């Protein structure tokens, strides 16, 4: 056979083999099978109202923000947040601290990720660090997703993942998630991860470059993005928080960055996250600020949000008994007139965890200088005032 013949028939044979591989791989992909039910918290038993609050330790950072937390062994809570001289500064690191319910104290904070460490582990330049998000994968390992930026502002963000086998004492090397074809920039994270029935981890993310919209990533056991679904599109919705209610149904809430009226956005799925409804505005206000939500052990939805259309001076809790259709504001965590507040009246970026004992923990940015932890039970939520 001539050289031209080898080239012609050899390239065809190679293409046939490679495309056979592509078809086999694609046809072998499992379907998700919907959401996996979360580990249920113990339903609240009759108990007296309980409420406590404290500020997390912060010995060095002038500015802190964006707390996240996960329950770890022994009923403890491990929190993460970012702090530094200011938001976006090169000295911003991600800190962690552990709350012991027996001693009712937080351990001294320590940095788990710095810009320099991220740069070495990710093998690329990193300019600044941003939002951390904690959760567990299907194997029960503690996962920490965090935002990093190499060029530009937050629109240049990408998400990274590191995993701990020992409840956050030590961490494996961080790896980059790829979620956008455009230089893999403009993907951020704020909402907690969730589980799919097939063992994949779901991660709600949002984009901020040109458009502002949300997506739900599916990650395999190694942390690779293996599928994604668009939650919204356009210019005005971000920071999705997804709350699965069953294998098929979930409700999501999103921060709103569009034209007034400024309201929290809500989306729904009834096919395990394959398709999502168009966002609708709820009756609750949203001053272009992050929200948090959780499904309580008794089946009601709890929402932590800034109860104002223009500022973050009021942080409140609302309950829905009809899966998000109607809401009742039950408590104000911050912003009561006359109560002592932070030097800067900003209470934002809430994060909710209901522990296995049924107690509810809310962490949030307190005046940009501290992270505050409030914990309470459902009796306190419903207590008549």
């Amino acid at each position: 056979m001539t050289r031209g013949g080898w080239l012609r028939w050899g390239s065809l044979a190679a293409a046939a083999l490679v495309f056979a591989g592509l078809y086999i791989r694609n046809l072998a992909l499992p379907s998700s099978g919907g959401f996996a039910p979360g580990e249920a918290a113990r339903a609240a038993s009759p108990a007296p109202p309980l409420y406590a609050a404290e500020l997390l330790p912060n010995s060095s950072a002038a500015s802190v923000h964006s707390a996240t937390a996960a329950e770890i062994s022994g009923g403890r809570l491990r929190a993460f947040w970012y702090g530094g001289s200011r938001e976006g500064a090169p000295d911003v690191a991600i800190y962690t601290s552990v709350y012991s319910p027996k001693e009712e104290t937080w351990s001294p904070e320590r940095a788990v990720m710095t810009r320099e460490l991220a740069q070495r582990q990710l093998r690329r330049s990193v300019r600044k660090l941003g939002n951390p998000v904690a959760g567990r994968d299907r194997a029960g390992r503690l996962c920490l997703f965090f935002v990093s930026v190499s060029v530009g502002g937050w629109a240049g963000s990408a998400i990274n993942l590191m995993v701990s086998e020992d409840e956050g004492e030590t961490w494996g090397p961080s790896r980059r998630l790829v979620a956008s074809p455009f230089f893999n920039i403009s993907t951020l994270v704020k909402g907690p991860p969730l589980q799919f029935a097939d063992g994949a981890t779901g991660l709600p993310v949002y984009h901020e470059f040109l458009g502002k919209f949300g997506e739900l990533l599916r990650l395999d056991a190694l942390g690779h993005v293996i599928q994604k679904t668009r939650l919204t599109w356009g210019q005005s919705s971000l920071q999705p928080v997804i709350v699965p209610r069953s294998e098929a149904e979930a409700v999501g809430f999103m921060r709103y960055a569009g034209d007034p009226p400024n309201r929290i956005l809500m989306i729904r799925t009834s096919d395990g996250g394959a398709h999502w409804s168009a966002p609708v505005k709820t009756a609750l206000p949203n001053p272009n600020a992050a929200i948090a939500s959780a499904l309580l052990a008794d089946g009601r939805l709890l929402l932590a949000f800034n109860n104002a259309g223009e500022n973050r001076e009021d942080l409140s809790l609302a309950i829905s008994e009809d899966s998000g259709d109607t809401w009742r504001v039950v408590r104000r965590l911050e912003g009561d007139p006359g109560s002592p507040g932070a030097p800067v009246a900003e209470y934002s970026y809430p994060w909710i965890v209901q522990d296995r004992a049924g107690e509810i923990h809310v962490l949030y940015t307190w005046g940009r200088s501290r992270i505050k932890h409030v914990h309470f039970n459902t009796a306190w939520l419903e207590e008549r005032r």
Partner: protein
Amino acid sequence: MSASDAFGLLGCGVLGLAAVATLIPLRPLPPGARYAVMLAAAFAVFIPFGDLPAAAYLRGITGDVSVTTLILAGAACIARLTGKALIEPRDRQVLYQLLALAAAFLYPFALGWTQFDPYALGYGSVGFVTVLLMVTLSAWRAKLYAVVFIVIAAALAYLAGACESRNLWDYLIDPLVSVCALVRLLSGLRHRLSGKLTQPAG
């Protein structure tokens, strides 16, 4: 270092070398000097100074480049060194057209223009693979073997999980090669138009 980190740094490093080979006029130099310049550039790109090599700084900006970019950048380096083009002009022209078409389909929608997200097709769509197969067979029939080779190389890298991404699009195309294709196509069009305008009448 993981295999995907090594592949990512290699892609960005070769891209850096192609930039050096394009910016420095190598052709007037004697062959030995050309290779010495490229060797020095390779050291500068791949050897760390401080925490990271220059390729890692480029990687911070561009992310991992596609296999198409890696091959075109490698071909550009070889062409500058040897004076021999590895990719025929006809293949190159069709490749640029395909890349421009793919970019016009992919990027506006992937950046949130509508609910439809073509990027999600790259995670495992039989339809997407079938379209790619049709394109590859058409290129093969037209004897555009460079195009066929690039698709095969990208698909092989995807099947091997060579990059951080598990999305086939990221192996086929990236914004850099898309912009390059668009610029080359527009530049070719401009030349053709100016050639027609300057042709004597009759």
